[in-house]
């Protein structure tokens, strides 16, 4: 389902017949091709992006115009998905996502094609319309399927998501599903619970041992969210807490010591993981200092 060919910098440069330095200069100036990073922080280019640029360069008058043409070629998937969902064609919608995945990472396919298409449909028909409901249900199903197919957790990180969206037809719900998917694909264990469910919450938290809590969505009132957060903190102690897509009528809620994550799921998941990593590093530092202090005390006692 998620077959995507990637190229190392040298391979992408060879395909484009330029030097690796030129490729990096293009990334800085044009933002294209936009690489992902491997586990070792090396650049990984999607073959589709590089191939689209190579074709565009052959007929281009400048790098800028070739980049623009390559981007246009890639946006075809979004048009296809919008058309498929507007025409209630599930198979075509699945195919559009398959095509998108051949050219991009899962994260970028979701953000640039799936969520972008749903955004366009929402603007076109309204989020209370039948076409939106059809499209949102399909997208929700697709994201859940992708979550099930994500690799098993590889890190000792766990994230508890308090789902404050209305239901899967809520415009924020898809972004929340995407956020969960990205966290899961980054190796974290993710558990999403509705904010309304208080009963038995402590059992779940003890089982999950979350490193961070995210309250996602803006439908549930603040009082209910506060009650849920209080229960979480009462069981798990003071955990880093973040808000994702928690807005009221366009205004962000006021928070104390709670991080507000970016609205884009990819940026939000990156920021959350960085927040957890910093905390883990800090805890390690504290542990190291404690050991060091103990060591000094022991030496002083011996002396």
């Amino acid at each position, binding site marked *: 389902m998620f077959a995507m060919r990637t190229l190392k910098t040298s391979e992408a440069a060879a395909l484009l017949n330029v030097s690796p330095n030129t490729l990096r200069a293009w990334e800085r100036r044009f933002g294209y091709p936009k690489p992902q990073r491997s586990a070792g922080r090396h650049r990984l280019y999607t073959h589709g992006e590089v191939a689209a640029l190579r074709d565009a360069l052959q007929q281009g008058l400048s790098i800028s*115009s070739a*980049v623009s043409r390559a981007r246009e070629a890639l946006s075809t998937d979004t048009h296809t998905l919008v058309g498929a969902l507007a025409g209630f064609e599930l198979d075509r919608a699945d195919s559009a996502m398959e095509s998108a995945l051949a050219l991009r990472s899962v994260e970028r396919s979701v953000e640039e094609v799936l969520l972008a298409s749903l955004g366009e449909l929402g603007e076109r028909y309204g989020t209370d319309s039948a076409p939106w409901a059809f499209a949102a249900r399909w997208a929700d199903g697709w994201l859940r399927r992708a979550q099930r197919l994500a690799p098993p957790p590889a890190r000792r990180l766990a994230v508890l998501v308090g789902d404050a969206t209305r239901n899967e037809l809520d415009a924020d719900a898809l972004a929340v599903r995407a956020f969960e998917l990205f966290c899961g694909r980054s190796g974290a264990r993710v558990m999403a619970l509705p904010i309304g469910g208080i009963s038995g919450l402590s059992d779940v938290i003890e089982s999950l041992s979350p490193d961070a809590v995210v309250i996602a969505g803006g439908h549930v009132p603040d009082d209910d969210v506060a009650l849920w957060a209080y229960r979480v903190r009462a069981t798990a102690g003071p955990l880093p807490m973040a808000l994702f897509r928690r807005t009221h009528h366009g205004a962000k809620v006021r928070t104390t010591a709670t991080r507000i994550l970016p609205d884009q799921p990819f940026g939000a998941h990156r920021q959350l993981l960085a927040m957890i990593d910093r905390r883990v590093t800090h805890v390690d530092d504290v542990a190291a200092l404690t050991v060091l202090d103990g060591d000094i005390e022991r030496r002083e006692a011996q002396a």
Partner: protein
Amino acid sequence: MRRLRAVRPVEVDERGLEVVSFCGHCAMAPAPARQAQPSRVCGHCGLGLVLRATAELAPGQHDPFLVIDTTLSVCAVSAAAEELLGIDETQAVNKHIADFLVPADANAPSAENLLALLVEVAGGSAESRTTVVRPRQEFGVRFNARIGPCGPPHAALLVLT
């Protein structure tokens, strides 16, 4: 080194005119090809594609220039033109040339119809001409402009002097 770079390899086209190659961004002549398949990307700056134009039209190393296609969209802006006009190529590409340059005196009887000329040149059916242009929304600033065909693919090269 500078003197060596200034020497451009000259070819002669089917009309008997001398044709030179230059980078669409830094205007430098392409470096001698080291690979079996030479790249169209400029080996000096890496930010432009190598284009060809007649020797009399081609920009000097510091001449600002723009490349325009038959739809009158800006396709390339040289580094010098970015500086002169205060625009960024990445923002200017695909915008109409009239967003940046207009005829200096549209009412003068001798004034060329800039847009018609550009379309004609970009289509490959006109010779190089000279006209006077000014930046849009700016008065009292005029540039002589050499306009002629370049490519590939067919386009109009507008060199400001």
